[in-house]
């Protein structure tokens, strides 16, 4: 661009110089050079003539007037020519500028078009990449849907084929003294707040554990108190000691989660999956720090050939399977923890477990 401007500038100057050098045309300096100089005639020679008589003077005066008039006329013509020339130069410069502007505009337009082209190309690339990713996702979704659809037809009638969450309600309670209290060597007596054994307004919310025992809450744990007031056991709680970022309590046993559940719930992070007290957590395999709270499960005891657990009086099958598994006079269907179970309405015996996805 700079090059173009410089070139245009040089061109303009050349045009001006060329005009100035044209033969036969009056221009500022040139006109003055050709112009007769009255002062020269008034030189030493002129003074000599002045000493002649009045007729000569009158004649000379007339000549001078004529010369002045001619000079004035010349100057007028020169000015007019200069004006004309300036106009031409201005027009030339305007024309040059116009041309340069047009050229610059064309350049910019070209560059814009090029950039747009680049962008389009890049956009095309991105669009293609996005489309690829979308296709991948759709493929994966399709695969999963296919798997689900395939597994939907798999009705398990042999209890040994059913992967079940292992559950023992006793696992929720860690017997003995928490390490923090044990270090105090005070017979595992709880801190002041617990020792007062005041029942908080939410205390009955833990009543699933053991109505006969005295449980009190403190700082993310539920403590079971012995009649002496000493801590007899403790439970780390969801939301307290069991919370993302916390390291899994070393004394707290948990169960591994069978593959089927990881598939069903769509767990695809590189975590260790642990089940404790009806909650599935994702843990960092290296640090054992809790990364995520993933699912709630009932841990109810559904075994083929056994009676259906209490508390499933309402049809609750997921939307996607309702067109296939609906209650009839011969069979009921109930959902729990990743399976649909087929139940005999009369005997309430579980006839089959239906996997929903692998």
């Amino acid at each position, binding site marked *: 661009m700079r090059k173009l401007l410089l070139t245009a500038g040089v061109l303009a100057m050349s045009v001006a110089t060329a005009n100035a050098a044209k033969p036969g045309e009056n221009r500022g300096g040139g006109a003055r050079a050709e112009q007769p100089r009255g002062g020269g005639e008034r030189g030493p020679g002129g003074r000599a003539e002045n000493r002649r008589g009045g007729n000569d003077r009158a004649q000379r005066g007339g000549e001078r007037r004529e010369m002045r008039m001619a000079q004035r006329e010349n100057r007028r013509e020169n000015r007019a020519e200069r004006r004309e020339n300036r106009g031409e130069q201005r027009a030339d410069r305007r024309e040059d500028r116009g041309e340069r502007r047009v050229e610059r505009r064309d350049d910019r337009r070209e560059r814009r078009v090029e950039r747009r082209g680049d962008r389009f190309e890049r956009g095309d690339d991105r669009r293609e990449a996005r489309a690829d990713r979308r296709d991948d*996702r759709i493929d*994966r979704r*399709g695969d*999963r*849907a296919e798997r*689900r*659809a395939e597994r939907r037809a798999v009705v398990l009638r042999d209890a040994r084929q059913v992967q079940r969450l292992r559950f023992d309600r006793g696992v929720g309670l860690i017997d003995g003294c928490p390490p923090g209290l044990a270090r105090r060597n005070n017979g595992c007596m709880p801190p002041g707040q617990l020792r007062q054994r005041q*029942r*908080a*307004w*939410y*205390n*009955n*919310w833990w*009543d*699933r554990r053991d109505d006969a025992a005295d449980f009190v*809450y403190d700082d993310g744990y*539920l403590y079971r108190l012995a009649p002496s007031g000493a801590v007899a056991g403790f439970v780390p*709680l*969801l*939301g*307290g000691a069991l*919370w*993302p970022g916390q390291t899994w309590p070393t004394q707290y046993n948990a169960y591994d989660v069978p593959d089927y559940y990881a598939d069903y*719930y*769509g767990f*695809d*992070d590189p975590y260790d999956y642990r089940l404790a007290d*009806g909650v599935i957590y*994702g843990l960092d395999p290296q640090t054992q720090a809790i990364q*995520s*709270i*993933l*699912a*709630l*499960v*009932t841990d109810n005891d559904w075994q083929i050939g056994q009676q259906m657990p*209490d*508390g*499933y*009086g*309402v049809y*609750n*099958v*997921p*939307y*996607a*399977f*309702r*067109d*296939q598994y*609906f*209650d*009839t*006079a011969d069979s009921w*269907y*109930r*959902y729990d*923890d990743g399976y649909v179970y087929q139940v005999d309405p009369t005997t309430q015996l579980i006839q089959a477990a239906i996997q*929903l996805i692998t």
Partner: protein
Amino acid sequence: MRKSALVLTAAACLAAAGCSDSGNQAAGNGQGNASANASVAPSEGTIVTALRGNSDLGATAALVDSAGLASVLEGVGPYTIFAPTDAALQSGLGEQHLGELRGEAMRPQAAALLRAHIVPGVLTRRDIVAAIEAAHNEPVEMRTMADTMLTFARDGEAILVSTPDGARARLTGEESAVGNGVVQPIEGMLRRAEAQPG
């Protein structure tokens, strides 16, 4: 994890051709009617988005967040949450206790409370009414994620849900059938506070 969970839900819906994004009213009773069951049409979204989108359920939505259960209720599920309205939580707990319950220090209590309001699977009102009718208008039961029992009975045109410790609530407003379950607004709490709110 959340993404994959939602993808799985969406995929399941596609596979069964039983889901659409039109409306949030559920239908189907599970009583021998395939066409009725197939007509269940959950809207897009999750239990969490349904809670957040209901102006009467803001307090329950806040408790779900503070208890760390949003990741669960955005997952595959399905679950049905009986969600106390803001007025119900206010009345059942009082301003002070409700405020405390939203705090970090009471996350375990919030989680325990919510688990007592969640049952496994998809429970539409139509399913509950059909179950009561199939039981010759006797109450029917469902077990919660806190291992407590909910009892459903008809109360005129309404559905009443109650617990062994004496908590009672009517189902109110409109249910929201979403991709990973159902939100059923209720007029009361399904856990009683031991001490009356001050």
